[in-house]
């Protein structure tokens, strides 16, 4: 009865994984590497790869432009517009990081927000429609993006941003976990807390002193975050099934 949706598989999951990390990277870059182009490029590549992956999942690929038709109610349309904005501002930022990078970061935040709301609006899937999913998706994007940004700099500002994002993500996960109670997320959730939060925080702390530890912290945060999101999209996505508030009366009681 509880049917695991198969409409969105790893390809759709990749959009949330790569798009979230890419979006988070743009935001982190705006904070930590305001003049660097490489993080911007990587961010855009990741987001594009994610969108490319999900495009592969659509049934009518040549009609992809129709995705823009419903900005009034569809978070998928909004995500598409946010992506367009992100690419436009990202391209501009590649040309001139300032003043365009902060604007691109805002577009990235909008993009990530739309992704979170896409799940939230999926009424058929209790694990997605939980309101707590929004903060979870946004915070994982922030944490993973910051973690990825540690490849480019280990500046204390970024480390601090990264640590805050990790804490936020852990809180978001705990709140989400309490609301959604999904068995399929228990293992990745545990990984997210133990490796992706505690270990990553310790490594980040070490990163203040030994910069080489910082990318390790980032890797731990990214790997566990991606694992969780993959599981959330492809493994925990059970339809709620059917329930009868009343059982039929068959003949005389």
């Amino acid at each position, binding site marked *: 009865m509880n049917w695991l949706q198969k409409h969105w598989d790893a390809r759709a999951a990749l959009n949330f994984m790569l798009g979230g990390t890419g979006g988070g990277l743009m935001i982190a870059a705006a904070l930590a590497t305001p003049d660097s182009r490489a993080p911007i490029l990587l961010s855009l590549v990741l987001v594009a790869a994610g969108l490319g992956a999900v495009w592969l999942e659509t049934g009518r690929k040549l009609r992809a432009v129709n995705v823009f038709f419903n900005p009034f109610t569809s978070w998928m349309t909004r995500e598409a517009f946010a992506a367009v904005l992100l690419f436009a501002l990202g391209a501009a930022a590649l040309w001139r990081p300032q003043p365009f990078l902060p604007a691109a970061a805002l577009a990235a935040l909008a993009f990530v927000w739309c992704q979170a709301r896409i799940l939230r609006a999926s009424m058929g899937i209790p694990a997605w429609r939980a309101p707590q999913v929004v903060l979870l998706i946004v915070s994982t994007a922030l944490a993973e993006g910051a973690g990825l940004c540690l490849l480019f700099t280990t500046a204390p500002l970024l480390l601090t941003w990264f640590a805050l994002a990790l804490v936020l993500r852990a809180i978001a996960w705990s709140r989400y976990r309490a609301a959604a109670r999904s068995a399929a997320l228990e293992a990745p959730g545990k990984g997210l807390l133990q490796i992706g939060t505690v270990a990553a925080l310790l490594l980040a702390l070490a990163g203040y002193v030994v910069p080489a530890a910082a990318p390790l912290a980032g890797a731990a945060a990214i790997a566990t975050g991606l694992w969780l999101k993959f599981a959330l999209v492809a493994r925990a996505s059970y339809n709620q099934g059917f329930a009868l508030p009343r059982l039929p009366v*068959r*003949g005389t009681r």
Partner: protein
Amino acid sequence: MKRVATYCYQCVAGPDLLTVKVCDGVATEVEPNFAAAAVHPGGGKVCVKAYGLVQKTYHPARVLQPMKRTNPKKGHGEDPGWVPISWDEALGRISEKLLQIRARGLLDESGYPRVAASFGGGGTPQSYMGSFPAFLAAWGPVDMGFGSGQGVKCYHSEHLYGELWHRGFTVSPDTPLTNYLISCGANVEASGGVAGVWRHANARERGMKRVQVEPHLSVTGACSAEWVPIKPKTDAAFLYALIHVLLHEAPRARLDADFLYRHTSSPYLVGAHGFYLRDPGTGQPIIAGALEASEEHVGLETGADGEVLAEGRLQGETAFAKLVAHMKPYSPEWAEGVCDVQAARIRRIANEYLGAACVGQTIDIEGKTLPYRPVAVSLGKTVTNGWGGFECCWARTLLAALVGALEVPGGILGTTVRLNRPMSERHKSVTPGPDGLMAYAFNPTDPQHWSAQPNIRNAYRSMVPLAVDGPWGQALGPTHFSWMFLDSTPPGLPRVTLPELWFVYRTNPAISFWDNDALEERMARFPFVVAFAFTRDETNHFADLLLPDATDLESLQLIRIGGTKYIEQFWDHEGFALRQPAIAPRGEARDFTDIATALALRTGLIDQYNASINKGALGVRLKDFSLEASQPHATEQIWDAVCKAASSELSGGTESHGLDWWKEHGLATRPFPRTAWYLFPTLAARGLRFEMPYQERLLRIGQELGRRLHEHGMRWWDKQLAEYQALPAWKDFPGEWERALVAMGRAPGEFPFWLLTSRSMQYAWGGNVGMQLIKEVADNVAGHGGVIVNTGRARAMGVASGDFVEIATPLRSVRARAVLRQGIRPDTLLLLGQFGHWATPFAKDFDMPSMNKLVPMSLELTDATGSGADIVRVALRKAA
């Protein structure tokens, strides 16, 4: 686009009347024939199986031209090496064989017909085989007793005893009026067809209480007010306890004493030897002055073979008084220990039944005042089959008789006769017999007429007096004997031989009979098998010729509809319906009538064939529309004559619509009186009584049969002879299957589960396992993907849903996926339907076993009517 009216009769609960949508010569969709809604008891709707007919027509694996076997070796693992041949060659080979047989004599050295034929599905293939019955009639003796399920796996005791007691080959509650129904394993929502489902839904909405007594929560149990999970094969004990409550706990005045006294044999006096006391002058039973009495009369007591056992002033007790004493030990407390159903619950159900019986009330139907008794008991397949079946049928009929609910509005009704004649009219079969009871054409057991020379291999005439001689008697004999005795015929019977030519149509005994492996091995020895084939299957794997007959939507036939027929098929109308080609036959498929006519012509039997058609072999006597006998007629010509005769019969001779009219209209009916549903008024009018509760005739016949058998050195039927009792006692029926294990040197504890089966509505009788649509929709119903196991029991064994488990008897085992459900007893397993295919295209990939592979053909497990039951003790373990 056009819509073509036709019918579906794939299962015994048909026919359903439908239309087929045809677009540019392609059949695309089945719909109810809404024009029939007003006359059909199921709102004119069509069962799910009919929706598979489009796929059936266009099935890519259909046999579309005659094929001959090129590999002379037959066996499960042998490739038959089918190669296509022309119809001319195919018919030539068959007629050559038939002419050879005819030249040598129709019977073989053992006296058995050299030609045999098997048709499946409770007589439903007859609605598809056009004029083939006329060919068989023209031919002469044919052995139709090789079972594929019919006879031994049907509602067997109900068929035989039901006909004896109230002309009830199939017995149904009067669902439109019944208010309280105890259903012991009767799965009417799966087996009652559209009319059954429709009527029971109406009854539920009306407030009928149905108590489903069954080891698992079937579809019918699900739709019942109450589910009683009884231990398998103990239904007789449950029913006996109900009778005990009625006889020993309820005030006598609450029973229908008038009905019992005036309309049953209850007041007949029974002598010291167990036979009726008879008037010395007339020989008729002496009737006591009261229902429960012990009286002394001048009379005589006659036993088996007319032997006078006592004469003079004799003391007798009424049959009813004997019954009361007989039922004394069967209290609810006793039954609780047997059935695993609480005594209080049994008592409550008995009292609810009694309370709902409305004893004394009447109802007006079509201007006639009839008793109104809206209570009924219905019985399922494994309940009426094999050991214990007789006791259950007796108890059920008695429960009706005690409250006067037999063959009256609201009570239980026989809906058709197949053994007594005429088959089309139950009431005409009510003729006076001995002792003020209905006549019944028992196979003779007296020394002059009993014969140790059976007419067919299953020896029904010699062994089963109740299986009245005739084609249906053949099918209702111990049809496993034909298979079992091929290897070693027991003493006294002529050696059972292989038929020289076997026709097979719409049946697949290699799947649907017990002990599939043993059956295959025997089939492989049949020298010449002609299979009318839709696709390849497990039985025609052993055939020599495959003939593609035009299937359901491609061929022509007119059948009777309405009146009263199987199960819930009792209508307020009667008439005829036409099956007509919605599309042209695909490939080289031929209408069955074409095939039959060609065979008749090639075997020189055209005169007899036409004469048989004229006499009514196709369902209607042709009378004024008779065919000229000496020449062959085209299929359309034949059915045109049948249509005209049917039209004339329906209209009382004023109309004679031909085939074209019927093609346009599809069906025609006239009103059928509802009072004709009930046999009681007919018995009462003819001064006849129901033979309840005492079975003096059976007692006598059993003793006579025993003598005849023993005179011929036949001792191997002694266990079965014990079933012939005047008042049947409870025996440890489930123990039969436990003792079968002990006989194999194994302990019942090693095989702790009862494996049962249950009908799947989507498949039952349909021969439709190859239809993807049917498979797909059936899979929505729990149990189609594996063996149903109680959730708690499975978990305790470490078995999770979807795990493969092995189900084993001491001899064989099968694998199935576990389907965990709460709605089944922890000691019971259930395998729906009959699967286990290995040759049928598509179905062979189901990975779904059948219990048939696990059930042995066994004389020990054969009851006196010649039937067994679909039940076996098994072990269950998680498969590696």
